[in-house]
């Protein structure tokens, strides 16, 4: 690709996914997943890069991104918690679990703590009803999580998106551990 302004890593990924999926539209999702797991969310630059490096329109990229809830286009915390709001989980107390988390973190569902440590999201059935109430922390399953046991979601060790971890190191902040330590 001619455009040199994108990070070398992205350019390498683009070449890699294009080699695996010769159909341009099929290569978009794997590329976006890599960028997302690297930086936690998709910046406008990432969307431009996807369009340009994979040879499609920004219109197409935006449409695909808006279709999937996992592709977030807003700054997202180093620790992203999904609480399932499906039927089984609701019956097992998912709404109380969510409320407890909201109170504890001082944010509402869909928001990120001001230090950028935690993002709290709801999910449709995570296909793990046997673990109800089921959650995901940075996409790692956890369950059953009793409503009162919400702290384990904040304490369980997880891998952070590398870009966020780097940023946390640079700024001297404490990343995902911040919230737990504040207790």
């Amino acid at each position: 690709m001619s455009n040199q302004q994108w990070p070398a890593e992205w350019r390498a990924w683009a070449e890699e996914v294009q080699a695996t999926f010769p159909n341009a539209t099929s290569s978009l999702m794997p590329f976006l997943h890599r960028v997302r797991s690297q930086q936690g969310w998709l910046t406008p630059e990432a969307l431009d890069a996807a369009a340009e490096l994979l040879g499609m329109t920004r219109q197409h990229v935006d449409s695909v991104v808006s279709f999937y809830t996992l592709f977030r286009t807003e700054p997202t915390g180093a620790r992203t918690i999904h609480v399932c709001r499906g039927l089984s989980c609701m019956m097992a107390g998912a709404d109380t679990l969510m409320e407890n988390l909201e109170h504890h973190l001082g944010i509402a569902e869909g928001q990120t703590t001001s230090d950028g440590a935690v993002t709290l999201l709801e999910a449709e059935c995570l296909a793990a009803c046997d673990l109800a109430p089921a959650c995901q922390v940075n996409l790692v399953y956890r369950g059953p999580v009793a409503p009162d046991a919400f702290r384990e979601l904040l304490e369980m060790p997880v891998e952070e998106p590398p870009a966020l971890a780097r940023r946390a190191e640079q700024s001297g902040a404490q990343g995902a551990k911040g919230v737990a330590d504040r207790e």
Partner: protein
Amino acid sequence: MIQLSIDGREISVPEGTMVVDAAAKLGIEIPVYCYHQALGPLGACRICLVEIEKMPKLQTACTTAVREGMVVHTGGPAVEKGRQGILEFLLINHPLDCPVCDKGGECFLQDYSFWYGSGKNRFEESKIQRQKDYPVSDYILLDQERCVLCQRCIRFLGEYVGEEQLMLEGRGVHTVVSTVEGQPAHSPYAGNVIDLCPVGALLSEPYHFKARPWNIEREETVCSVCPVGCASLVTGRDGHPVRLEGRPQPDLDDYGFLCDHGRFTYDFVNHPARLEQAFLDGKPASASAAVAAVGERLARVVEKSGGGAVAVLTGAVHTVEEEWALAQFARESIGTSRLAVLKPVAGDLPLPLLGTYADLAAATGVLLLGADPYEAVPVMHLKLRAARRAHPVAVWGLGDRVLTRSTLPGEDFVAEPGQVAARLGVVLGGEALDGRWAELRRGLLETERLVVLWDGADPAAAALLAALAGQRGERPTAVLPTHGPRNWLGAVRAGISAEHAAAARILEDAAEGRLEALILLAADPLRDFPDGDLAARALERVPAVYFAGWFAPEPRHALSAMLPTAAWAEVTGTYANMEGRLQVAHGAAAAPGQARPVRSLVTALARAMGHPLRLPDFDPFQDQDGDRIARPAKQPAESAGAPARPALPPGEWRVLTGDMVAVSHPPSEIAERTREPLPLRLHPHDADELGLGAPGGLIEVAQGERRFVAGARRDARIPAGRVFIPRGLADVPANRLDHGAGVKIALADPVREEVAAP
């Protein structure tokens, strides 16, 4: 051919035809939302369900290609139940606000609900609320609640036009149509999505809440703004046009797409600048008094010096019938043969070469000779893209600036300013051509069917086009002239000469004092004649100028009389477009004030002159060539060269000019919102050197004593050292500058002062 049966009737259609189109051939209508012939199958909405024997489930008629022996049922209980189910889903979150919807009565959601809908809603949950007036562009509103997500709008702009400015956002019931990155759509073809939207989701902002279907008259017309003459429908309410829509013409393979310059300028007929009142010697007068006075004065001139002392120039915007009435008046009542069309370009198309839109659709190679269709004749650009979607078409641009663009890629050959025809001559001469130019020659001579879009600017090109056709021998060559005025071929049909020399002779005679009166029918020589200085001298010298038309030219003190005439949409008549096709346009509005049709004006003038004029009925259709004007037989042609231009002293710029419908459309209050503030164009490097900001700013163009100030935009399609000035621009009249000499360019004073301020 494939043989199949639909509803018990046999039909055979070409392989690859979709069931929905095969049924249409039998006159059987299958409901569709997402399907459109111009866009091809998608299968998103499922309303077109039909039953096909031996297939277990209902099938979508728009995505199912015909097969030999297929037996299709487009009705029956299963089909009706299927469509009813689809409609029930489509209406789950629909607000059912037809009583306040602009499209109420013109909506396929309503129609199909009447046919198949259940009349009862089983869905009791509250509806999802979305944005009701999302501004898609300056002219278009989107009611997201009414959208059925058929994607016609998105696919039209993205695939057909090639400007991806709309998209689907979200998933499931949360999906909405929105603009890319929240930026308003700015394509000049965006307005078509209003016509394409099968429901009341995409709405015309200027027409919003203006009328209900039972208040209006919706008449067949043709767009009057540029020479493409797109087929359209005009909506009249209470005597005013309030809307223009595209009108598909299936037998011409025309889907009825318009451009926004035409779609949103219909209000020109009610513009404050419109001439609605007669003036005599600068003072308001009643129309009858003004006509009587003008008639008497003309009679006196004719008596004293003969009819030859009077000349008539027409701007060729009235109907063919009216141009014919004018010609009769000139010849019989006045007795003059000085009668011509005023064209903004000096080139004369050899009429035997005049091509058609069908030629364009079938072309294998297209030469843009000086013409940028996107700006000058926008729907031609769409037609070219459509031809390209069907089969490969080579596109070459030969002009003094870049003429292809990202939505119409091709090879560009940029000539020195004023040397376009000379370049073509060299290419046809074929001697000592280097690589690329040799390729161009080979392409032009060898492509199977060639169409040239010619801007008419360089008169020397006319003979070369004839020579090109000659060199191509048996291979068809067709030329489509992109220049105005929009009905010049109609004036030719009415027997008026459209040769540049004819108009030039009239103005020369006037400038030399050989004329005693000049009659202008909607003609503005100062603005439009290629040699603006000659026009100025002519208007100064001729003792009396009588103007009749819609917008009186400046300076008005030079006009002895101004007589208002009825405009487009106010009369029924015929117009000829740039392929010479005669198209009937009906009136849907009332002429304002004292405006009257040209026919009654000239008969009244003749009566006042004392020579009553009897105008028999005139039928513009000649019937020998369908509904196109007759073309004379081809004549052998010789090729000619063009003189080379001297080099410019350093620091001077070459002037380029061309048609831009965004500038030349009639004055419109609606289109004011997208008026181009920076109509001039410069190369970005030149702009940097001048210190012009992005996207542009005010510059001063100077030649000798003349100085003009106007906005200029950066544009990489203009070669360095050249400045593009669209034709007909009031701020910088390109026809008052000597294109052979250079101009000086500087940042305009206000900008300099701003920069200098502390």
